[in-house]
């Protein structure tokens, strides 16, 4: 059963950030309660609230809970997406929501930006590489129609 707090983690970048936050919380466990609360409240509000709720509801010790959460965070499968532009949070949410609603297991998206692909996306998932980039489509078209294009260019050249 996936922890509800993990639903706030959508990208591998957020995964790394949240792993660091959990490590800070674990270190705070060895100090006083006030310091632990201070670190917890320093997290992003939504995550802080969800963590506080789960910590109080959990039957495990705080350390066990945090260790379990960290392990679960590391186990989440990822889908690699290469985009042609730097996506806004809205775009990331849109993509994430679509993936979450179409996959059965929790999934993080690992976004890479490469303007050379022009548009579309390259997806790396379950060990497969799927190139849905605009560059591939354009290159395919150009390759398929190379002879025609050159012929047209030569015709136009002669006319002009």
């Amino acid at each position, binding site marked *: 059963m996936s922890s509800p707090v993990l639903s706030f983690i959508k990208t591998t970048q957020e995964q790394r950030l949240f792993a660091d936050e959990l490590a800070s919380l674990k270190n705070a466990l060895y100090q006083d309660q006030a310091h632990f609360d201070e670190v917890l409240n320093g997290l992003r509000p939504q995550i802080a609230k969800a963590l506080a709720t789960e910590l109080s509801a959990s039957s495990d010790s705080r350390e066990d809970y945090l260790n379990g959460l960290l392990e679960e965070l590391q186990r989440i499968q990822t*889908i690699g*997406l290469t*985009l*042609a*532009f730097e996506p806004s949070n809205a*775009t990331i949410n*849109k*993509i994430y929501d*679509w*993936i979450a609603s*179409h*996959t059965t297991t929790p999934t993080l998206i690992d976004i890479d930006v490469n*303007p050379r692909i*022009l*548009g*579309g*996306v390259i*997806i790396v*998932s*379950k060990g*497969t590489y*799927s190139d*849905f980039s*605009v*560059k591939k489509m*354009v*290159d395919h078209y*150009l390759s398929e129609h*190379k002879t025609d*294009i*050159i012929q047209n*260019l*030569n015709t136009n050249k002669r006319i002009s």
Partner: protein
Amino acid sequence: MDNTALLLITILLISILGIILSVVAYSYRQLIKKYYVLREELDREKQAGKAEADKIITEAEVRAKEIIAEGTVFNQKLQENLGEELKNASAAQAENYQVILKTAQDEVVKIVSSMSESVKSQILQEFKSFTAEATTQVQKELQAYKAEAGKRVDESIFEVVSKVTREAIGKSLDLSDQEELIMSALEKAKAENSL
């Protein structure tokens, strides 16, 4: 005991060596004697040979002078005879010689002329053939070069067109187009069971 035996053996060996050396010295002396005898004989023969050679050379010189003298006489006789013969040549014979010479000349001219035409024709033919072959080869190479150059130009133009096309398409896509393409790609990946 051993030293005495060794001394005796040494004395014996030295004695043998002395005898051998004496024999060698005697043989050498005999050899030297023979050498001098042979050398004297050789000198004598050389002297005798030289005298013989001088005699032969002297005789040869005398004979040569005689031959030269005879030759001069014969040459004079021959010239005299030839002059006589030329004087005796008749006008008719001279005419015959002229006719034969003229005929021969005509024949030669004819043959030379014919040969020259033939050679000329052959050379011309070969030259024409060579020219045609060379022209064809040059044309072929020119065509191949033009085709290759044209191909390279086409490739360059195609690369430029491809680059411009990519850039134009990339720039023409706005955010909504990009998102639509991404969602469409995700749908396809889902359909292909790649997610």
